[in-house]
């Protein structure tokens, strides 16, 4: 009998010590602890520490469309280089090439193996991407987007971000503890396609365009000039903000659709300060291919205006004064330091292969998180106090034992959560508080049973034993059903709900332990020391 106590008491003591040790890193003492212990600790969920949870969908169709456009453009270039008299034109998912000659077909089959011939009619050949190639582009666009976003988040400097894909083409991004959520969202979601295009100032349409308009007038302008825009041209806008009044205006540009150079050849992007105006600008450098292209483009277009465009917004349109060698350029615009820094980050990390569509955005400010924790702690203390006082009043000494078990229960729960680096969410706190109520439930079941046994005239010792035996299955049943709920919630729930499932599930096991081993041991010790005449219950 004595030996039996020893083992059970050791178990309880060990569990208590371990819980305390593992819980310590979750407290303010963390800094003073040995290093091996510091990696443990309860992680606060987004809802408690603030931050953003974003879900984006990668527009795979758009990525395919962009690929077709790029192929069309490089087809035209190839024909040019090879001095083949032929035209390539993008029409929806197809590329229409004319005329239908062997030289054209041969060039395409040799240099563009991913294009497949669809049909030939009236001297026009229709090419498109086959299904497998489309699938590959879509898949790689998700991977590429994931990689790009990772780079951006790394540069932004978020501790412990979570970035992963789900259900094929969705990307989930969690940035806990972030304060400037608006900036983070802009940084992550920016497509960042950098293009250099020539302005078409020679067209008579360019002269008719209004110089500067209000943002709300943009659709009207596009509609007005829809029929007049020369073939191969497009209208783009440059957004500007007046620093004094804060009023936004758009400058209207007519330019060639074909991008002479894109951001894919970029190797470096840095923020510099313009000494004259004390304004930041972003200087960019191209790789060798890009540098050669840039030199070629500038040499061929001296005295023309070259627009620098990011995500279809024209940043600037300087006149090319002379051939520029060396592969350096700069993007200036009316932006602040922060904006320039972020621009450099997105340019460095590369463009997204396709625009992202936001599916979900949960943003929690840091103050709400703090409020929630305070509210949770307050509710927990009040709830625990109510339960503790009730138990002592109603069950006296037995109630105190139950309260002791309750304290162990909370301690173990915190220890386990901390040891497994579990994420605590607001519903998770609710789970702990409900666990407080339910922890005592098991004891109530046993105590009521003991009282019944006492009424039947049994001795305290016998009442305790049969109380435990008879209540066991009821306790077991109730815990299993709660466990089923917890497992289901964990399986189907999202972030905060998962946190609830975790505390509930862990609570079930701890409950079983404290009720069946914890309080039982204390009762056994009390009833074995001396012959009990009366049980305070």
């Amino acid at each position, binding site marked *: 009998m004595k030996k039996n106590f020893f083992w059970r008491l050791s178990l309880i003591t060990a569990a208590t010590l371990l819980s305390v040790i593992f819980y310590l890193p979750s407290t303010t003492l963390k800094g003073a602890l040995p290093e091996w212990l510091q990696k443990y600790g309860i992680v606060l969920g987004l809802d408690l520490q603030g931050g953003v949870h974003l879900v984006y969908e990668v527009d795979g169709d758009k990525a395919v469309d962009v690929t077709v456009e790029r192929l069309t453009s490089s087809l035209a270039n190839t024909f040019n280089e090879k001095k083949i008299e032929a035209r390539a034109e993008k029409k929806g998912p197809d590329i229409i090439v004319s005329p239908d000659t062997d030289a054209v077909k041969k060039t395409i089959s040799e240099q563009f193996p991913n294009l497949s011939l669809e049909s030939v009619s009236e001297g026009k050949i229709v090419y498109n991407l086959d299904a497998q190639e489309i699938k590959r582009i879509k898949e790689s666009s998700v991977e590429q987007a994931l990689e790009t976003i990772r780079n951006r988040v790394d540069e932004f400097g978020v501790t412990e971000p979570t970035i992963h894909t789900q259900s094929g083409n969705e990307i989930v991004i969690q940035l806990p503890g972030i304060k400037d959520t608006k900036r983070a969202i802009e940084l992550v979601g920016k497509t960042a396609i950098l293009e250099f295009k020539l302005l078409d100032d020679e067209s008579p349409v360019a002269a008719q365009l209004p110089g500067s308009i209000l943002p709300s007038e943009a659709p009207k302008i596009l509609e007005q000039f829809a029929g007049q825009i020369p073939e191969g041209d497009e209208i783009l806008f440059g957004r500007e903000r007046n620093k004094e009044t804060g009023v936004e205006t758009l400058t209207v540009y007519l330019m060639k659709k074909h991008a002479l150079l894109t951001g894919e050849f970029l190797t470096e992007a840095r923020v510099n300060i313009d000494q004259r105006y004390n304004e930041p600008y972003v200087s960019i450098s191209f790789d060798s291919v890009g540098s050669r292209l840039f030199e070629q483009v500038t040499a061929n277009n001296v005295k023309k205006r070259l627009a620098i465009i990011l995500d279809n917004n024209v940043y600037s349109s300087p006149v090319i004064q002379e051939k520029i060698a060396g592969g350096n350029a700069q993007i200036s615009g009316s932006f602040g330091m922060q904006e320039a820094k972020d621009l450099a980050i997105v340019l460095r990390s590369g463009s997204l292969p396709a625009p992202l569509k936001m599916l979900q955005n949960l943003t929690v400010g840091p103050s709400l998180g703090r409020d929630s924790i305070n509210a949770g702690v307050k*509710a927990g203390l009040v709830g625990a106090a109510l339960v503790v006082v009730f138990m002592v009043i109603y069950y006296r000494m037995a109630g105190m034992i139950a309260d002791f078990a309750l304290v162990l229960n909370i301690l173990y729960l915190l220890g386990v959560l901390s040891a497994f680096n579990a994420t605590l969410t607001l519903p998770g706190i*609710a789970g702990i508080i409900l666990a407080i109520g339910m922890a005592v439930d098991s004891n109530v079941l046993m105590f009521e049973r003991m009282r019944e046994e006492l009424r039947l005239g049994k001795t305290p010792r016998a009442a305790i034993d049969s109380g435990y035996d008879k209540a066991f299955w009821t306790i077991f049943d109730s815990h299993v059903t709660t466990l089923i709920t917890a497992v289901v919630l964990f399986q189907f729930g*999202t972030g905060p709900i998962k946190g609830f499932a975790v505390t509930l599930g862990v609570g079930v096991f701890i409950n079983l332990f404290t009720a069946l081993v914890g309080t039982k041991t204390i009762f056994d010790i009390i009833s074995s020391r001396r012959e009990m005449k009366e049980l305070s219950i």
Partner: protein
Amino acid sequence: MIEILKATKIDFMGKRYYALALTAIMSVLGLFTVIQISRGAANLGIDFAGGTAVQIKFNERVPLKDVRQALLSGGISDVELQDLPGENKVLISTKKSEENIGDVSKKMISALSQKYSESSMVVDSSTEIGPKVGKKLRTDALWAVIAAIIGILIYITIRFQFRFSIGATVATFHDVLAVLGIFYLMGKEINLIVVSALLMIAGYSLTDTVVVFDRIRENLRSRLKKSTVEVINESINEVLSRTIIVSLTTFFSAAALFAFGGEVIHDFALAIMLGIIVGTYSSIFVASPIVLLLGKDVAMGKK
């Protein structure tokens, strides 16, 4: 020894037809709510319906009509405003889903910042859920409910004989439906957290039923001379104080959450509190009469 209830002798089973009427009403109300939800007529939270919710914390108390005015001048109508009592917080929500969901909250916040200075308001949280995610969360919640019910059913079938498992299942369904129905009547929003509460209630209701059933089963075996009605009545009376106290401690915790847990947890705690009350009722007045109904003549356990 303090006792809430001394030995009682209430004829619970004699009142089973009144109880049946109440049970039927609550169940029909719950089923009606399920129908309303499926045809989109219930007050679904934005996590299910899709939409945008922005919570703003002001430095001082701000009348709702001023906030509405500020939003209107920013071109935003068709929003619901809710004052969070005790705190200077306003919840602005709309279920209108736009193609590009990132824009709605931005528009709301910029409309408000035209009127209120940056130092007088803080954006506590903003939630934007696109229609696709809303649909997925709806499906997930439905599967969660189905999976939980199947899991619990399997467990009861293993642990109890047939008529008990039928009784417990009906009682569990009743409780979930009743709380759902009451929420619908109160015009409360049905969201992800409320669904979690419903699952929790399903588990809890079962626990409560198990307490009663264990005793009925035990007494059916030992009191062979008595009729089933008598045994069930005696069993319920015997465990009455236990059922109530067991419910009471969890109820205390839920009540503390309800009062102090903050606005997110408020409805969750309310659902749990209702669930505890309904769960206690159903163990006595729903589950037990079904055992009686199904087992009157079979008399299993009495042989």
